[in-house]
């Protein structure tokens, strides 16, 4: 097997319009400045994407990037990134995924994949280390994400079968383990604005990148890799770092509980902190929340590991739901398709999850949109008879009770606390049928048409994740300023404010500093491309933070955040970069790269029209308190925002100033690559 020492800067450039392909080279300087993954991908997009293009038009560009760590066997490195202009938000969308595609892309010899144009016919893109094929996808169109991947992997002669892919599926492929797929489901085909892209059982979830593929008539991408072995330049240092990283992961509390029960472990913390979304974020806790906790799921559903590969944290699980194997719904799914709709039935949530996964759409945005519809129907903004289902199946409750003939419930098919009609509604979204077609535009678009913006729980068009920011003010600021919209992963302050108890949650103090720091660190992590959850183990387990007494650390974080930030030792990340690439990188360089990536993304968004007015939270978060909240918390956003802009070097309208570009060495004009 041939070796790639460190990284490949070869970028595979595809043009679907004329079915051409070429290979370009990313510069070493860009590699140093933007690392890889999300960072280098952002720079590639900056150099190629014109502002103002239609996200569903031919001119949008989809970029898929492995990270520097991808393919090296480093802990938690089975991840890759996708970037494009989002059809849901109209600004840049980035998504990270733990599926198998990233490793095959990288071991096919590529440091990135750029897809432009639009195919005249429905197609599958196939490539290996030396060639590219554009295959006919007529027979795959309409299939769900699981069926599509299964058929493509089962086909031994995909590469040579241009007429009918399904003819060749009966032959088991010896090469199938060397191939990995990116596939969209019907939601992507039907341009659902929050359609996602599947790779194995993991997803590029947010921002509607599946619809970008759909708009390009691109059903799937097959990467046949395993041609190159990715070898670190300094393998001795790399092995030492691996051991250290695994030790940190094994010792740290958050990663330990993620491994035991998965992200659903958060339910108990969030419910206790009274920030669990219930009934479209009207309530912050529920006495049945324990039913959807990770611990209860583990006890009742015979769970087993079902992780990204390679992984040392192992948060992914599967278990028995509705009598068969299914992924354990992630925390966000349990809340957005569960508690936020008033549903605590795990089997029902698993069924909703399955429809979204097979149909290929983001559970957070789907759930957030459903919650908006429920509230809008309740308030009379959306007529309750918009749902016209082809049969009466929705009249049977999930518990098997056939409702009586006199039942008028069909007139109110979607309402909080009832599973009735949810499965049909989700199906109708993926198929873009009836009112489902409108729901597929997301809650912002719906509220613009029908009213009810105040309870459309979204920022910049992206539906909010499952943590109510009124219980975590830092997260409130993070949601408001996150580049892709109401994203909980841009700066996961709830971890520091709630799970770890290190930062007082209901104060504005120190939040701008921590939001900026965590945003920058997250950008670098997504560029290096390792799991987000390593952040806790890698920053809290090194001696300096670990052995600083907790009360000292807490007080420093609150009162002297700059001093506290100096205690956070994240040097293992740049050390991995250096060991793999042979390029020296300090902690300072690493966090600066993160800042560069974040600011570049912000700048690209300002070119699309984003301003300070868009860094806003839903009215509910800043005007209303959670029902029953004795503390009467609302997010003090204005206060935090002003300070945050100053720290970031943005002007009062939220635009990065020229001086910042100089400091970060970001070219104010892209190197235009046609």
């Amino acid at each position, binding site marked *: 097997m041939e070796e790639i020492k460190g990284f490949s800067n070869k970028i595979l450039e595809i043009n679907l319009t004329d079915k051409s392909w070429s290979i370009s080279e990313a510069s070493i300087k860009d590699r140093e400045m933007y690392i890889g993954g999300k960072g280098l991908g952002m720079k590639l997009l900056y150099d190629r994407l014109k502002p103002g293009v239609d996200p569903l038009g031919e001119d949008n560009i989809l970029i898929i990037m492995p990270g520097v760590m991808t393919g090296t066997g480093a802990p938690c490195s089975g991840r890759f990134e996708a970037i494009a202009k989002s059809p849901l938000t109209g600004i840049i969308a980035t998504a990270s995924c733990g599926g198998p595609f990233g490793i095959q892309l990288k071991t096919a010899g590529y440091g990135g994949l750029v897809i432009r144009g639009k195919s005249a016919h429905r197609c599958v893109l196939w490539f290996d280390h030396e060639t590219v094929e554009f295959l006919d996808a007529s027979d795959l169109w309409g299939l769900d994400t699981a069926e599509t991947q299964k058929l493509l992997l089962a086909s031994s002669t995909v590469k040579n079968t241009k007429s009918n892919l399904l003819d060749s599926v009966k032959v088991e492929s010896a090469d199938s383990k060397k191939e990995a797929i990116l596939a969209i489901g019907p939601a992507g085909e039907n341009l659902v604005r929050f359609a996602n892209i599947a790779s194995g059982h993991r997803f590029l979830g947010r921002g509607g990148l599946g619809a970008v593929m759909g708009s390009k008539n691109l059903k799937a991408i097959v990467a046949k890799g395993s041609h190159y072995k990715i070898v670190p330049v300094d393998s001795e240092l790399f092995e030492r770092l691996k051991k250290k990283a695994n030790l940190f992961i094994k010792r740290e509390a958050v990663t330990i509980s993620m491994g035991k029960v998965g992200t659903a472990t958060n339910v108990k913390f969030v419910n206790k902190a009274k920030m669990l979304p219930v009934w479209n974020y009207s309530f912050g806790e529920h006495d049945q929340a324990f039913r959807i906790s990770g611990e209860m799921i583990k006890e009742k559903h015979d769970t087993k590991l079902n992780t990204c590969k390679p992984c040392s944290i192992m948060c992914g699980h599967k278990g028995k739901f509705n009598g068969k194997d299914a992924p354990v719904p992630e925390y966000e799914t349990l809340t957005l398709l569960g508690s936020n709709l008033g549903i605590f039935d795990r089997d029902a949530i698993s069924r909703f999850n399955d429809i979204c996964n097979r149909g290929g759409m983001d559970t957070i945005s789907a759930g957030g949109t459903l919650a908006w519809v429920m509230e809008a129907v309740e308030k009379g903004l959306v007529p309750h008879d918009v749902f016209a289902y082809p049969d009466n199946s929705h009249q049977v409750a999930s*518990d098997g009770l056939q*409702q009586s003939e006199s039942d008028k419930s069909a007139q*109110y098919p979607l309402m909080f606390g009832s599973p009735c009609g949810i499965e049909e509604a989700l199906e109708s979204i993926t198929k873009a049928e009836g009112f489902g077609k409108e729901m597929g535009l997301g809650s912002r678009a719906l509220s613009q048409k029908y009213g009810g913006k105040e309870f459309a729980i979204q920022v910049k068009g992206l539906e909010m994740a499952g943590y109510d920011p009124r219980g975590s003010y830092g997260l409130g600021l993070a949601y408001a300023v996150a580049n892709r919209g109401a994203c909980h992963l841009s700066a996961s302050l709830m971890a520091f404010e709630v799970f770890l108890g290190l930062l007082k949650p209901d104060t504005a103090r120190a939040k701008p500093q921590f939001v900026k720091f965590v945003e920058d660190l997250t950008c670098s992590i997504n560029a290096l491309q390792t799991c987000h959850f390593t952040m806790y183990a890698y920053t809290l387990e090194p001696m300096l933070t670990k052995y600083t007494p907790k009360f000292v650390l807490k007080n420093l974080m609150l009162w002297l955040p700059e001093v506290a930030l100096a205690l956070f030792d994240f040097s293992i990340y740049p050390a991995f970069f250096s060991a793999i690439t042979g390029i020296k990188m300090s902690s300072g360089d690493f966090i600066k790269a993160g800042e560069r990536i974040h600011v570049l993304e912000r700048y690209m968004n300002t070119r699309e029209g984003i301003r300070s007015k868009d860094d806003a939270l839903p009215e509910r978060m800043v005007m209303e308190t959670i029902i029953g909240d004795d503390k009467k918390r609302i997010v003090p956003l204005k206060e935090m925002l002003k300070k945050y802009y100053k720290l970031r070097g943005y002007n009062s309208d939220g635009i990065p100033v020229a001086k910042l570009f100089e400091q970060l060495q970001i070219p104010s004009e892209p190197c235009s690559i046609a």
Partner: protein
Amino acid sequence: MLPSYYEFHNPVKIVSGNKALDNLPSEFETLGAKRPMVITDKGVSGAGLTKIFIDSFASSGMTIGAIFDDVPPDSSSEVVEKITSIFRQNKCDSLVALGGGSVIDTAKGVNILVTENSDDLLEFSGAEMLKKPMKPLVVIPTTSGTGSEVTVVAVISDVKRNLKMAFTSTHLLPDIALLDPRMTLTLPPKMTAATAMDAMSHAVEAYINLQKNPMSDAYAVAAIELIRKNVLKAVSDGNNSEVRLAMANASTMAGIAFSNSMVGVVHALGHAAGGICHIPHGVAMNIFLPFGLEYNMPKCRENIAKLLLPIAGADVYARTPEPRRAEQMIHYLIELRKALNDLCGLPINLKQAGVTEDHLPEIAQAAMNDPSLIMNPREMDVNDALVILKKAFE
């Protein structure tokens, strides 16, 4: 709309509080009693509850006449006779029932014999066969479910004659129902859940059936609300006195409600399944309640809809469109059952409770003879009963 005529009767004094037991000696004094006999069972004594009771008498100067702590799970005439004899030997003048349904019924039986100065319970079996005012009876429930502390009923088996004797009389009503959370703190989670759902079934059936009235409605609604707010905490955190006291109050209120308005198909099916397959009563109530409501829905949709308020709270009620409230009420009940099942494994269908499908016709037939059907809003025939049983099976 008010019924054109109804009766409501509840003369039982309720003494409720965290240390309510401490007031018992003075309550006996008020009742004119000096030597109470305590009737309880091994489980209650083993859990240390009898000792708490005795301690509460220690500084009062009042003497406990006798203690009998061997009441079996099913009250029988033999035990009643044995206790009656001890009562007489020790010259007791009043009774304390410290326990669950069986202990309370046994105490009621003893009270019949000592009051009537008889040795044969059978001659008093039936409705309103008792004429004399009875000895003072204080009931201290150690479960929160049966409501026997406020009911006019006692059921006692005559093993020799293979009879199940039912007694109903207003004279059987205890003088005092004493609710002290210390008496239920040790109740295991599954038993807590089962008895709570027994109380829930009392309140819900009381609210929907034909003999309902404004007084029983008030107790039923208040009981359901208290159960909703406390049952999950009681099951998951049994040591919480506040929650235990709330559940004890809910159970008593539900008891007052159903003893005045009677119960319906849920109890009919529950009694039959209990008799044939020995399913604990609370477990049977938990299994049948949503199906019984669904069956009765065509006759009492509005009443079921109104129960959404206590079972789900004001926010849910207000935000649920009127046409959906009845279904939502049943849905909330189903979700509550699932939550209890998650917490302690309380069965939610007959199969989980160990019933085999071939027993269903027999249970359906037995249910047809149950007096609970008399006041049920919808007339049930054996085929209907079988349909409900099949739905409740799996």
